[in-house]
């Protein structure tokens, strides 16, 4: 009689490996248990729960990215607006400065237009410089208003005594 711990011979093992042996058939005949339904439910519920937090996490990530993009875009827009405002302010200042220069240069012409007015000299809108005053006198002389030109010259000499 062979020992109990004798290994299976090749034929027996080959049959077994091809799942054709009585041992396999017997095993599968008597062992047919399955997990109880409550285990099935618990495992499947766990599997679903694991996915459930995956979805909110994905949504949260998407929201975070959207907020970041929004903030980034907002910052860029704000910066652009600041640059525009700065540019507009500079443009306005330049225009004002140009306007001022233009007014200064156009001053004699204004006087020339107003040269027909009698009280042009008595109501100066801006303080006169020596040069503009001389230019006004020149305009009066060209207009043939010599008396007025002489009067203005005297005023000029009184205002700027040392330079005359």
């Amino acid at each position: 009689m062979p020992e109990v711990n004798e290994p299976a011979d090749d034929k027996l093992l080959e049959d077994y490996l091809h799942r054709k042996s009585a041992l396999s058939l017997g095993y599968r005949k008597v062992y047919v248990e399955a997990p109880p339904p409550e285990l099935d439910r618990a495992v499947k519920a766990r599997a679903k729960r694991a996915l459930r937090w995956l979805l909110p996490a994905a949504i949260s990530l998407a929201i975070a990215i959207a907020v970041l993009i929004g903030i980034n875009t907002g910052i860029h827009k704000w910066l652009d607006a600041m640059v525009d405002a700065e540019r507009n302010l500079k443009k306005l200042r330049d225009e004002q400065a140009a306007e001022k220069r233009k007014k200064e240069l156009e001053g004699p012409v204004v006087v020339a237009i107003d040269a027909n007015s009698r009280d042009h000299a008595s109501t100066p809108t801006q303080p006169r410089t020596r040069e503009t005053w001389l230019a006004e006198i020149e305009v009066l002389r060209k207009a043939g208003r010599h008396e007025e030109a002489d009067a203005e010259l005297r005023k000029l000499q009184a205002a700027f005594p040392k330079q005359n």
Partner: protein
Amino acid sequence: MAARTARTFDMEFPNAKASRRQSDKNDTADDAELMMRYASGEARAFDILYERHKGPLYRYLLRQVRDRAVADDLFQEVWRRVIANRKRYQAKAKFATFLYRIAHNCAVDEFRARARHREERSESMEEAGEMLAAPDAERPDRQVADAQFRAAFQRALDNLPSEQCTVFLLYEESGLSLEEIGEITGVGMETAKSRLRYAVGKLRKALGSVDDFLEAEFDQALPRTRRVGLEDA
């Protein structure tokens, strides 16, 4: 005609066709594909995978630990780890290898956690004989024969060295090759084969009545089949 009917049905109910296609796809999808689909968020893929493997895995754990409550806990633990590691699973690895490696590690942890004595094993073996009643046994004598055979099988499994028992159970339940079983248990294919050879030899010797049992089983089945055939005629 049938094909034409199916086509007409599909034209009238396109959603049913899509649903059937999805169902066919699920039926034929391999485990790795299902696991990848689950990892990407498809809960249904997990359900299919679970249904395929739950029985063999449960039996493997139950035979290993020989205690239903412990097997239930381990079963849940194995699936918990599968779920937790779903992102790490790579399709190039066979899903069954992945699953049974986890199961094997859980069983080893369990063995290490509790020091089992011979007496306890005898008690649990008797309990196992009681709890493993065949669900569909029709006749009392068959129930007795089944219970006796189960008890004898369990006794023979209990008497196997644990590494031989593990290889035998993995081969029976997982459907894996000897090479893959060797990979799971941390040995080469030849060692796994040697362990299986010894396990089969010992079980065959211990279950000398297995042929008688199966013959009796088939004798029971045959007249039933003939009866059905005659009734149909």
